[in-house]
């Protein structure tokens, strides 16, 4: 008996040796992602911009410049060794302001995408799991939300006076308010995509055996939703969040451009362009740099999102 078992084990071991070693799913995803040149380049651009953003204070210290210090004697200086891209209308180094602007834009994109995804995921899980009236109510809310004209609504929300909503003056007067506000209002309008997505996944998973098993074992609803269902929805959520962060950066830059987003002297790619329409006649390049950076970031995010989608779900490739 013992000998039989050992031969079987040996045979199985020989079989296993003949097969290639199992590949981890993450590695498979990476291999498929690698085949997408645009996504790879996009990821490279994003890593580079993120590094610049993180290192902004270091770069400022090394250059010995302050991105918010006004120097009216040096307005609109042409490109030079001290100012590689010249200076802006208040004599500040444009390159440094662009780097700091990237810090804001990437921060807003990342944080808002996370908030949006969490909000949408929670609503989607609840809607899909409970079904019935809860689902009907949340999905009608979703439909109504999508029907709102996005930009006008954001403009109204951005224009709301924080003291009139009853915010304490300490927060209402804080210079970071415009940053928090933009994160908050974009999250408020952008949750619908991930909510619908997660609801769909939850609906399809809820009848599957492993979820039913968890129900039979008496697992709590929170445990089923967050331990059993959520992990299976992570890859579409990640793709949606990547694509969403591109749109978020577009919205942030648009609002900042209109003067309703990030408030000067804090730099953002959008607000550097605010008075671009006056300077395009004299300094057209100054209007081009920030726009190109926004464009490069957003297109990179879109390519990476597209690449991730193909990598997670090979069936969608080429569509």
């Amino acid at each position, binding site marked *: 008996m013992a000998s039989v078992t050992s031969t079987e084990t040996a045979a199985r071991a020989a079989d296993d040796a003949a097969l290639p070693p199992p590949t981890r799913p993450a590695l498979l995803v990476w291999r498929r992602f690698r085949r997408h040149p645009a996504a790879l380049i996009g990821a490279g651009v994003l890593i580079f911009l993120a590094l610049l953003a993180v290192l902004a204070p270091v770069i400022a210290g090394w250059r010995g410049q302050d991105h918010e210090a006004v120097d009216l004697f040096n307005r609109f200086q042409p490109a030079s060794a001290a100012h590689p891209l010249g200076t802006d209308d208040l004599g500040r180094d444009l390159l440094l302001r662009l780097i700091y602007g990237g810090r804001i834009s990437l921060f807003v994109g990342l944080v808002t995408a996370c908030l949006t995804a969490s909000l949408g995921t929670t609503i989607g899980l609840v809607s899909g799991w409970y079904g019935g009236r809860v689902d009907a109510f949340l999905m009608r809310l979703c439909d109504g939300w999508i029907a709102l004209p996005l930009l006008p609504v954001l403009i109204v929300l951005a224009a709301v006076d924080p003291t009139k909503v009853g915010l304490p003056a300490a927060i209402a007067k804080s210079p970071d308010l415009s940053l928090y506000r933009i994160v908050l209002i974009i999250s408020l309008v952008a949750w619908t995509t991930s909510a619908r997505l997660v609801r769909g996944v939850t609906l399809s998973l809820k009848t599957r055996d492993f979820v039913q098993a968890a129900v039979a074992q008496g697992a709590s609803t929170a445990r089923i939703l967050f331990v059993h269902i959520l992990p299976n929805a992570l890859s579409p959520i990640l793709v949606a969040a990547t694509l969403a962060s591109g749109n978020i950066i577009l919205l942030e830059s648009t609002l900042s451009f209109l003067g309703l987003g990030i408030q000067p002297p804090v730099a953002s790619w959008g607000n550097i362009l605010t008075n671009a329409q006056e300077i395009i006649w004299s300094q057209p390049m100054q209007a081009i740099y920030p*726009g190109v950076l926004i464009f490069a970031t*957003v297109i990179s995010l879109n390519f990476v999102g597209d690449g991730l989608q193909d990598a997670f779900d090979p069936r969608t490739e080429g569509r």
Partner: protein
Amino acid sequence: MTRFLSIRFLQAAIVVLVMSFVVYGLIGLMPGDPIDIMLSGDPNMTSADAARLRAVYGLDRPLFERYLGWLGGAVGGDFGYSRQHHQPVLTIVLPRLLNTLYLMIFAFLISVAVAIPAGVYAARHPRSLVDQAINLFCFAGISLPVFFLALLLIILFAVVLRVLPAGGMTTVGESSFGDRVRHLVLPVATLTIANIAQVTRYVRSGMIEVLREDYIRTARAKGADENRVVWRHALRNAMIPTVTIMALECGTLLSGALITETMFSYLGMGKLIFDSILANDFNVALIGLLFACSVTLLLNLVADVLYAALDPRISYR
């Protein structure tokens, strides 16, 4: 169908009603107080005058009561006066509406005329050089901020080449049709580019899906002409989801029009909404926003109806 339509119209009306209250409340939360603004224009006013003015305009009453008062007037066709223009709201809104409509119709027609052939071609030759070029253009189109695209077009055509006006509706002292059209070119181009990118993507993915279907193989097998297969058998089915998207995209055009009109000083609805929000012109902003909501809702409804009209498997009874 009638029943479906009436239910949807009722739902849309309720959404607009709820929205009108929300927007009314939100606009009250914006900085600036109409009475303060009036006072700042006249140094002789006392605080007693201010209180009296508040009572005259009903601003001392609670929010909901004020809203009901506004709603009563609005239902009777009285939307109040514009603080900025000193004219009834409708007198200001209607011509602006017409201007935006021109912009949107041109942008919509051009983008459909370009996007459908481009999307179909890309789907017929997947992975070809042209497909990849179209794909790149689409990604660029959806990643370019509208205001930056407008800036680029202004720099290129108005500053460098000096062939087109940088903004406005007409050249001062000239009122020819050609002049009007010249002022439309750049705003329409701005609105169109992002829209083409979006619609082409949907046409392409829809067509790729449909071209894999059995009935396409059947059509080819029975010897149908390839053009007939693509344009009659495939496109008609691929258009079902696309039409829905296009109707919804019209709503996006409206939002895009806000930026485009602002950039080109084009006197349309979007610029009116933006300017009146910034200038605390509450009555105009309110109507503008509600109008934008209603249009988006109406387009959603149109999308649903078209969906049923194009796909016999779907029926709304």
